[in-house]
């Protein structure tokens, strides 16, 4: 900020002395350009406000006509005669699939980030980082297609095995005969999808960890793992948290992969291996074609809830990153 200010403040005095006449036109050009660029920034803010505003407006229209409780109804039938729809199952499905995704993806992402930043042979590290970047770009519909055609049949065996040995945990008990189009499979697919995003952020943080600390630890005779545990991970902890939350935001809002893989139902079922369940985004994609205008408003209402949840998650993640930036800036 200070370095920005310096060139702006410095030039005026000489300009005034030497050719004050040219001051006018400069200011007009500057003013137009400043106006344009500030206008674009304001446009972005307006778009965000408009998203929140319009979604809330349509959602309010829908919820006011809903005959049942919007939060606790296990049904999605806005066009029925007593209009009845609720997000209970969607909240559950969204949260459970995202939690499964996080439980799988975060440790593996930390591992890959460590691999790239500290373990991989030098020549391998940058091609792998490059590959991870490319993977983040694979369209979600392709993950969905792959998940439905390849992953679902493949996970059937794992489901059977989990059911056989871990049915006593209740959540791994399989009570219906569907194939593996369940929240567990969705969670695994989401984990694969968010892995590159989380890995990229964590890798950046790990690469910034202070070299002096690492070298000091090595000089004291620490093994590589001890160096990582004592200097890299403590330094990167907030980075790991915020990266995970960014991944969580992505998992919460993922639409097509879930829509393709899950066989939806509106039963609240705590057995995660049972086919069925639903998420916010998946429900919107699945119900949209058959919805009339009121049905769309109902879907918009559920979209608003999704919007608010992702807003909170992302906002928190960014706040953590911003705090860390100041912290490490003060240190350096």
């Amino acid at each position, binding site marked *: *900020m200070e370095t920005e200010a310096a*060139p702006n403040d410095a*030039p005026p005095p000489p300009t005034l002395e030497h*050719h004050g006449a040219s001051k006018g036109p*400069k200011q007009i050009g500057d003013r*137009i350009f*400043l106006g344009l*660029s500030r206008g*674009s*920034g304001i446009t*972005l803010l307006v778009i965000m406000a408009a*998203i929140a505003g*319009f*979604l809330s407006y*349509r959602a309010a229209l829908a919820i006011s006509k809903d005959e049942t409780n919007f939060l606790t109804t296990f049904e999605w039938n806005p066009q029925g005669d007593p209009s009845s729809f609720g997000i209970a199952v969607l909240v559950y499905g969204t949260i459970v699939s995202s939690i499964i995704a996080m439980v799988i993806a975060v*440790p593996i992402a930390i*591992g890959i980030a460590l691999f790239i930043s500290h*373990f*991989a042979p030098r020549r391998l590290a940058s091609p*792998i980082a490059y*590959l991870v*970047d490319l*993977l983040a*770009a*694979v*369209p*979600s*519909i*392709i*993950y*969905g*297609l*792959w998940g439905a*055609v*390849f992953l679902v049949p493949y996970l059937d*065996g*794992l489901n*059977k*095995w989990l059911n056989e040995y871990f049915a006593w945990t209740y959540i791994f008990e399989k009570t219906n005969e569907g194939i593996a189009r369940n929240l567990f499979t969705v969670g695994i697919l989401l984990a694969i999808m968010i892995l590159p995003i989380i*890995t990229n952020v964590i890798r950046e943080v790990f690469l910034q960890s202070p070299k002096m600390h690492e070298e000091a630890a090595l000089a004291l005779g620490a*093994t*590589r*793992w001890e160096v990582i545990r004592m200097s890299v991970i403590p330094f990167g902890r907030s980075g790991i948290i915020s990266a995970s939350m*960014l991944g969580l935001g992505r998992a919460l*809002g*993922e*639409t*097509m992969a879930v829509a*393709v893989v899950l066989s939806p139902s509106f039963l609240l079922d705590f057995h995660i291996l049972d086919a069925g369940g639903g998420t916010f*985004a998946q429900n*919107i994609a699945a119900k*949209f074609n058959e919805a009339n205008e009121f049905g769309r408003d109902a*879907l*918009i209402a559920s*979209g608003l809830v*999704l919007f608010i949840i*992702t*807003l909170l998650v*992302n*906002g928190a993640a960014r706040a953590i990153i911003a705090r860390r930036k100041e912290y490490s800036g003060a240190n350096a």
Partner: protein
Amino acid sequence: MSHTLQDKRPAVADDPQGSLSHARMPRWAPLAIAAGSAVLGCLIGLVAGLDSKIQWGLLAALIFIAGTYLITAKVEGPRQAKNQVATSLVWVCFLVAVVPLLSLAWTTVSKGAGVVDGYFLSHSMSGLLDTDEGGGIYHALLGTIEQVAIATLIATPIGLLTAVYLVEYGRGRLSRAVTFFVDVMTGIPSIVAGLFILSTWIVMLDFGFSGFAGALALAILMMPVIVRSTEEMLKLVPNELREASLALGVPQWRTILKVVLPTAIGGITTGVMLAVARITGETAPVLLLVFGTKLINSNPFEGAQSSLPLYVFEQYSVGTDAAVDRAWGAALVLIAFVMLLNLVARGIARWKAPKTGR
């Protein structure tokens, strides 16, 4: 081998006084343990009759970790053993992540390669039943290109100017608010952007489904990505360049246009292309706003269009063999297009990287 022998001899000899160097595992030990545990895992899998290969893999991984710890602890001591286990865990993480990704790439290429040919690329689905063989993606390709082009035309100027504002002018509360909301906007689920355009453009303003409506939603998704990447690039431009230009009496707006932007243009292009690659694969907003059609509609402002990701989704939902084949063909074209954009973009980034002095 020779290493181990050399390392061990002094250790034994100096034992009474305590030694600085101690026994080390040979360099091939982790590989040997890995091979051994893989064999053991497969054997147990075969004997116990487990059908899923995933379980074999998990067993092998468990045996590998336990084996590494025990053997290393015996030879080198517990601290080194922990280090070895951590190292092998990190390697396992990497391998575990690589497997699904290779499988994804392989499945798409092997299933799609048989479908994609000149006919597939140059014909639409007009007049075909879902069960029919043949047909193609021309209409979808056209739709995707038009929608992405319109979205890029809308989002790029706004994104660039916002980034310029944040880096060159931004101070105070407005710029902090913009920075924060750009960050938050990056995380908007694509389906929410679609719903927003649906509630304004289609429900409130009463326009029909069209490629343009889809492009508007894509533009919303694209803007924050462009702002972020452009901001990063502008921050890399050395301040000396700005100061030199201003010191010559060049007004700030000309400094930005003639000095700052040209210096960063490589990185900015890369950012825009990566954003294009990202929105090309977006399905959800297109599903809500463009609606999909089997016919060629080259006018993005009126009537339903198709798009590649939407085509993949539709054909998969149809579910017949011919349709799923077409879905894989379209998926291959889509992934090839996105990867090409990525590769070119990163190529430009490397080629035109701003020279940040010594």
